[in-house]
């Protein structure tokens, strides 16, 4: 069976600057994949490519065996992304969490919104009626995460989900995303700086530095190879281009 995502020869450039070059990367369905590495290493760019928000400058991304180019709108129905600094629509919490469900014409929006809010530790009775500007920074993040969880996506991409969250909120996020995989088989790709947090939940962690896959060196002294490597195959350039 082919992997959920297959990236081959993918290069991304912003203007003249090359920000990502991946000769090959396969992401199997159902894994929790971590992305680590320094700022500007290419983590966010990779997530935007996986979210079909941008098309690569070169190379091919296959999703479930098919090239993705030109099918972005349809594919974004299965893949959603939780950005580093989430944006809430100027509406109520309920309308924000329900937005993705509404555009899909999903039934039971109300109860699914309530369930998603409960997943991120927000009492629907207290929070659903609030407006976007009546929330703290941490609550904004949790509402935004609830909006993604409510969709029960096949793939959930998270860009530094625990940045600026306190320990309890980070634990809530961990439980919520792990539950998404256990209950709905969601594939997760999570970037982050918090090594401990990442290692606690990921099957495998990829290192991105200077836009390419790297092996952790001295700067990642805490890195411990995953116990079960799984079937993620970051193949570095020497091997993929014989």
């Amino acid at each position, binding site marked *: 069976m082919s992997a959920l995502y297959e990236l081959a020869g993918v290069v991304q450039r912003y203007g003249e600057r090359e920000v990502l070059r991946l000769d090959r990367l396969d992401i199997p369905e159902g894994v929790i994949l971590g992305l680590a590495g320094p700022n500007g290493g290419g983590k966010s760019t990779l997530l*935007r490519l996986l979210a079909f*928000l941008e098309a690569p400058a070169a190379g091919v991304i296959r999703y479930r065996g098919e090239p993705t180019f030109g099918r972005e709108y349809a594919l*974004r129905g299965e893949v*959603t992304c939780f950005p580093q600094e*989430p*944006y809430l629509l100027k509406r109520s919490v309920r309308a924000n969490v329900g937005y*993705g469900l509404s555009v899909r014409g999903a039934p039971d929006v109300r109860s699914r919104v309530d369930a998603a809010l409960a997943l991120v530790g927000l009492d629907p009775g207290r929070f659903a009626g609030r407006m976007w500007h009546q929330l703290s920074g941490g609550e904004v993040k949790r509402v935004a995460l609830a909006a993604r969880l409510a969709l029960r996506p096949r793939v959930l991409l998270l860009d530094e989900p625990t940045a600026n969250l306190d320990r309890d909120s980070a634990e809530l996020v961990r439980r919520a995303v792990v539950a998404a995989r256990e209950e709905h088989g969601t594939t997760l790709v999570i970037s982050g700086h918090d090594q401990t947090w990442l290692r606690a939940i990921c099957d495998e962690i990829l290192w991105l530095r200077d836009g390419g896959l790297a092996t952790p060196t001295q700067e990642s002294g805490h890195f411990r190879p995953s116990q079960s490597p799984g079937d993620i195959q970051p193949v570095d350039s020497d091997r993929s281009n014989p």
Partner: protein
Amino acid sequence: MNYILDGLRQALELLFGGDPETFSAVWTTLIVTLEAMAATLLLGAPAGFMLGYTDFPGKRVIRLVVETFLSFPTVVIGLVVYAFISRRGPLGELGLLFSVTGMAIGLTILGLPIVIALTAQAVENLDSRLRPTLLTLGAGPRQVFFATLGEARFGLLLAATAAFGRIFSEIGISMMLGGNIKWSTRTITTAIALETGKGEFATGIALGIVLMGIAFAVNLAASAFRRRAVA
């Protein structure tokens, strides 16, 4: 000082006594403002939205032209429209000169650049995270469009309020294209100018009170809508 206080007292008598000439001017003002605002918003809001929402070659030039028109002298608008709708003008046969519709056309031209420029700016100033957020939540092109419109609603309201302020209180265009005809095209502003010129302060003050009252009421309503949503 006395004649001012006398004027104020007589003004209140005119207003509360329901003086028909005063109320004719108020009514005409409301009708012409309503017509001009409807046309301005129907034409200007979509144009401004598209100008801010889309990218196309020549966009910067159009923005520049629109912004230049923001400071277009109102007498020139009056003059140009007059030339077009006067008997000898290309639209002379429609008989629009010295009519309420004629005034509304001039006032629409006054309001359009305001609504277009402010709407375009409101849409351009929306948070850059809005589009990727909508896309990753699964919105299609149409849904992105309407959600963007919703996010820009306060900007649209501001554009409409600004255009209303100019249209409602404009005098030059109303005078030139309406002709200040009693019972017909006399508006609050043209009446005040005429009555003050004649030394009839009472009517002028009465009409001034109505003009300010309506302007305040509209702006209060607009800011109440904003406050209800934001605070």
